[in-house]
């Protein structure tokens, strides 16, 4: 898999590139800002882009804007946005684009290499990956008359993993359940929450995240 890394810290880029190469991925370019990134993706056509949310010149959300541009111009390339702090609004913004090959992770996730490389492969294959911190925040958000109260602890677990972008098979693997049992849980969760069944994994992420953000009539978009 061919990867481009965009981050304004050379130290971080070099370190990450070394680790990814060691895991059998090919880092075809390392760039320091959004303009260089878009140029590199245009010429090198990578399978995946890793981009820091804060880059020059304003160090605010350049990475997020670049991600949106890349996903409309080069939809074949998956994009993972890295940030030192994750915000649900950003996740929703990324998922709102055609939900294909997108990830949003805390920057420290790169140190958990197995998980991180797995996320890269999933996004490269067109899946969606959402940081567990965000999912936890959404699940734990206190609501008056919360419909989530109707879920069993196991169903809550399954819902959280779905929101992170895991497939049924992966959920089964993590929770030591058979694929069939997971399917039953998923169907029951969708019924309890009144969600229509989602046809594919990444649509399911969008549906679940949107649901978690807006449940019980809050005005969040």
């Amino acid at each position: 898999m061919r990867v481009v890394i965009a981050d304004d810290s050379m130290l971080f880029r070099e370190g990450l590139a070394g680790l990814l190469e060691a895991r059998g991925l090919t880092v075809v370019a390392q760039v320091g800002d959004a303009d260089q990134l878009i140029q590199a993706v245009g010429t090198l056509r990578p399978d995946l882009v890793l981009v820091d949310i804060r880059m020059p010149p304003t160090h605010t959300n350049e990475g997020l804007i670049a991600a949106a541009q890349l996903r409309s111009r080069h939809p074949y390339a998956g994009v993972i946005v890295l940030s030192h702090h994750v915000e649900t609004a950003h996740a929703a913004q990324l998922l709102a684009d055609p939900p294909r090959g997108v990830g949003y992770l805390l920057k420290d996730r790169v140190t958990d290499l197995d998980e991180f490389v797995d996320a890269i492969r999933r996004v490269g294959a067109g899946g969606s990956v959402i940081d567990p911190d965000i999912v936890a925040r959404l699940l734990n958000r206190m609501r008056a008359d919360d419909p989530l109260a109707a879920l069993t602890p196991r169903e809550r677990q399954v819902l959280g993993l779905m929101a992170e972008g895991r497939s049924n098979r992966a959920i089964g693997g993590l929770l030591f359940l058979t694929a069939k049992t997971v399917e039953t849980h998923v169907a029951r969760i969708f019924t309890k929450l009144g969600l229509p069944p989602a046809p594919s994994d990444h649509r399911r992420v969008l549906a679940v995240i949107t649901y978690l953000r807006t449940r019980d009539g809050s005005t969040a978009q």
Partner: protein
Amino acid sequence: MGRAEPEVAVPVASRPAAIDHRPGRARGALVVWLGSLLAAVLLATVALRALTWPVGPLLFDTQVEEATSPIAFLAWSAVGLVVFVFSRRPGNRIGLILLIAGLAGQVWVLTAYYAALGLVAGRTWLPGTGQAAWAYTWLPTVSFGLAFTFLFLLFPDGRLPSPRWRPFAWFAGAAVTFLLLTWATAPGPLSGDFDMVDNPAGVEIVGRLDSGAGWVLLLLAILGSVGAPFVRLRRSSGVPRQQLKWFTYAGVVVAVTWVAVTAGSAAGPPFTTIATLTYPIAVCAVPLAVSVAIFKHSLYDIDMVISRTIVVGALAVLVTGGYVAVVAVVGTAIGRAGETGLGLSVLATALVAVAFQPVRTRVQRLANRLVYGERATPYEVLTVLARRMGDAYAAEDLLPHLATTLAEGTGAARVEVWLVADRQLHRATCWPPDPERLAAPLGDGGMPAVPGASEVAAVRHQGALVGALAVTLLPGQALRRVERRLLDDLAAQVGVALDNLRLIEELKASRLRIVAAQDEERRRIERDIHDGVQQRLVSLSLALRMAAAGQGSTPETAVLDAAAAEARAALVELRRLAHGIHPAIVSEGGLVAALESLAERSPVPAEVMGVPLERLPASVEVSIYYLVAEALANAAKHAQATAVAIKVERSDGRVRVAVADDGIGGAAPGGGSGLTGLADRVAALDGVFEVDSPPGRGTRLTAEIPCALS
């Protein structure tokens, strides 16, 4: 006039009547057609008059009047046509009235000559002379009926002065219609010059109605209508007032001329000719004034015209009277006025000339007072200001008071108060009010250079320049000595007050700068942590993982993994710290995302409602964020609340935040809590902060902060 135009409700006050420059072929064609019609009527009139010349004066007592009247009528209809077609909506009705009144007058003259040609000059074969004679009897009613009622009622905006005038307008319309009907349908011989013809439209029943009653009704309608412009004059200001002055001026000119003509006609032949010549010309003044009022009111200063007219008129009367008096008195004394005529005339002229200059000055002052209004004496002005300074010392109130006072005292067209700040002059207030912010450089030698001002007085406090009072006068006016002294006295009095205002403004500005600097500092620290320590810790963890990955499972690997986990824990802690210092989400995602993010982390269920989607100034956004964060923390820590509602709305350049919980209440802004800091922060942004926390009934924090869109 079958001219279809979409009826659009336009607030008249906000749209002064002016020339409509929209191109339109229909408009052009209308002008050509109607213009040709007016010209044709005039040509036909001239031709008919030539044919009826042997008959002698027909319509008026003299040939001169007969020659000038059609021109006066043409002036009405032509101006009416132009106003009707070219002015924007409000002028249309005025144009229509002028056009109909003028055209009716023109046709009236035409019918008179045509009827005379057939009935008096013996061209009996002409068709329709009876009808022409009939039209001749009632057409003037249309003309002056409209001119003396609805023109007065509707000028300048085509609407009544107020809805209360509506019944009167109906009455005026009914009076004109009634008179018109009784005239047009009176049976038997036509009244006036053509009594050889019976009324072709005579109706017996209507004829029995007394046409004297019609005159009385019309007279009442006219008296009431003439009041309308004066009522408007008292209420109006700005452009409509100038327009009304033009119109009223013309009306007064016509009235005065009419009186002069009536009086002059009795005086004998030379006066009669002058009088009869003057009157139709004076009548032209009305359409001329209307067109100036509608199209060019900003070009000429009517106040000056009126003032000069009064001066010239009064002087003419005085000079003539003085001359006659001198000649009469001295002539009688000498007893032989006839023989010493030349010397006497020279003497009289010299006396009048000597008296002329002081009289002119007096009259001019009187005229100015009539036109520009009464002025307060300087002593009154100072007393009033002193009282106002005692009453209202708020910065917002004092300066407008000062400007108004100065305007009353000097009769200036414009008064400005300027304050010194940042080594520049800033306009703090203006009379009449003008919200535009102006700045001007400080002049050389300590005298402030205020652009456009006629007179400037520097305001000093303890020797230092703190501001300036600037007065702009009407063209042709100058400050009298006493008025200039008033300006200087005021400038000397308000030194302390202006210096205080300047200090308050500086204090406000510096407080705002401190808040902005604090925000900036926090942002910088957060970024330093982000770009420095956080980034380095991630790289450190990466390096530790790499080192560990190279080995198998050895004791060294375990140490490396533990070190990596420690670095990771440090990152999590650092993240929390950085987020507390400055919420990056505010500048990255805006207030919506930031408040949602706060609500997500809140241990007490919280809902965000109605957040404005447009970006606000950074300091306002950050302050709202801190306020909501503090309120949520209080709700969780002290209030034992079970729900919090966060509401943000933006209107009229202000943003309003309210955070309400259902907890135990009793929160006090004083007790060293974060609330005090919030109150200071909001106050620095010129906002209002309130804590409403009655025991047992929840806590409600509200803030209202002025903000322009960023």
